[in-house]
């Protein structure tokens, strides 16, 4: 088997730092779009944050949105062109801080879109400020002694939060911090796109990802941080799958066992 660049990715060098997870996740999304044969009917949204420049990497139509608004923008596109494939690609600040409202309501309306949510527990683009998903005790430039010392509250758990909404179809948390995790992440992303193609409603895949630069770690330390620290706070698993018989409490149990 040849290892080629997916058609949905341009053959260009990205601006991402060494050890960053965005490159892996971009590739997974692009592979899925290729495999489903929907590149020419896909419209992606770029967020504000490190992935703002994804329009330079994805070989499909892209709209670049205001911070936190991709679910609203995607709603406008999808409702206008219901037979196209619309995805958002958002970081934790974008999706779970400034855009929490747009996220919750697009999810609850059951908008037939696919949300790829990158959780790296930090604001990368702006230089390492505290994110809504920053772990307790984790240091950030705006929480210099660690989260928890200035009434920041605990990290926001997006999949857990959205799993209470009846309008949501599919929620899964995955990671890209090991080969096994990457394989699982790809399956999950593919399912989220397949559900959209089948008109099944709102899907969100949360991807735990590395940010060695803003974490002030080496790429290897960053991988360990995801595996040892983040997965503890953000357990992997399917939080909701309306189309699966195993959805609901059983899935939650399965997740807990991991």
């Amino acid at each position, binding site marked *: 088997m040849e290892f080629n660049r997916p058609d949905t990715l341009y053959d260009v060098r990205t601006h991402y730092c060494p050890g960053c997870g965005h490159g892996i996740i971009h590739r997974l999304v692009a592979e899925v779009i290729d495999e489903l044969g929907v590149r020419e009917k896909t419209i992606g949204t770029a967020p504000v944050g490190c992935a703002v420049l994804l329009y330079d990497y994805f070989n499909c139509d892209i709209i670049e949105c*205001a911070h936190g*608004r991709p679910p*609203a923008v995607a709603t406008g596109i999808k*409702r206008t*062109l219901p037979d196209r*494939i619309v995805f958002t690609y958002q970081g934790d600040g974008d999706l779970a801080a400034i855009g929490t409202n747009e996220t919750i309501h697009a999810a609850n309306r059951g908008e037939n879109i696919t949300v790829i949510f990158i959780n790296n527990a930090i604001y990368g683009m702006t230089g390492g400020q505290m994110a809504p998903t920053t772990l307790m005790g984790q240091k950030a430039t705006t929480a210099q002694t660690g989260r928890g010392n200035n009434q920041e509250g605990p990290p926001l758990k997006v999949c857990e939060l959205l799993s209470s909404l009846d309008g949501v179809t599919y929620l899964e948390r995955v990671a890209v911090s090991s080969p096994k995790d990457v394989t699982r992440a790809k399956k999950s992303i593919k399912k989220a796109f397949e559900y959209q193609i089948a008109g099944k409603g709102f899907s969100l895949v949360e991807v735990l990802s590395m940010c060695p630069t803003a974490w002030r770690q080496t790429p290897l330390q960053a991988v360990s941080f995801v595996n040892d620290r983040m997965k503890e706070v953000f357990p992997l698993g399917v939080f909701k799958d309306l189309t699966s018989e195993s959805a609901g409490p059983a899935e939650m149990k399965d997740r807990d066992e991991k």
Partner: protein
Amino acid sequence: MSKKLKKVLLKGNEIMAEAAIQAGCRFFAGYPITPQNEVPEYMSARMPEVGGTFIQAESELAAINMLFGASAAGARCMTSSSSPGISLKQEGISYIVAGELGCVIANVQRGGPGLGNIRASQADYFQAVKGGGHGDYRLIVLAPATLPELYELTMNAFDYADYYRNPVMILSDGILGQMAEPVELKPYAPILELPEKDYVLDGCAGREPRVLKTLHLFPVMDLMEHNIHLRAKYARISSELKLVEQIRTDDAELVIAAYGITARVAKGSVSLARAKGMKVGLIRPITLWPFPDGAFCELASSAEKFLVVEMSNGQFIEDVKLATECKKPVEFLGTGGGWYPTAENIFEKIQAVYGEKPSPSFARVQARGRL
């Protein structure tokens, strides 16, 4: 013999929504706020009938961003709100301008600042005509004074939006929105030859992918060039789209300047003044941006004095002074806080300022000839 058109009696907010439907608007997103609620209510019932989309958004911010998406996908789209909600929309408006997309935004103005009240107001003039959100931009701003005009201008707004690829604001107010008067349902016909939408994001089948971005980081001159392009567009709009109505200004010594519902009230005071033999006229901008400065400038030569009437503490008056280049005194009657002047109020002011000599200080400044 032309067929007699159907006349309907609807509220201003409803007739505006119907005009949008007639003009092919097929996407509406809005959020409840008084006094504009009839717009989303009407749209929620009407959109499904024509196969369009109505969304009650979670916020005005979400609504305007839904328009950003819908417009990028090629839809004729609209949102409406009232003053505090329009403030929330400013973020999205700036992005829509930056992306050079068209859409129609209606502001059924109410009193401010803050939550203010729910009475009619013209207090959002600056916000509407000077940009409103961040960055350097303009909206095309239309100010109807009657419901037939509201109906027609709303249809035209969609053409301007598509033709110039810029958001258009309909600057209504609580009175226009809530009053009812008979309107002929003229069928929509484009007033401009509309260009093909070759920028739409609908999937790249058979073409290169399109990117609609509002970030211009590289090369470093990119954003400046984009601004030069926008400035040229605004210059073009300015040269092509200045609409104004003048009533009895030919021989007027005193010219009342007013727009929207206030101009309609002022028409009554012109009649009262004329009945007393006073040479009073009215100039009413229909486009607030681009501002019809040429018409004002001409009147600054023929008339002796201006009287600006507006439902705010003095915003529109600044553009009148700029357009008349301060050649003649400009008197002011403003009612802020959600209050409106009556024809009698304006007539009283006319009596007070008509024929009155300019103040010595104005005469001194004028004598220096540096204005």
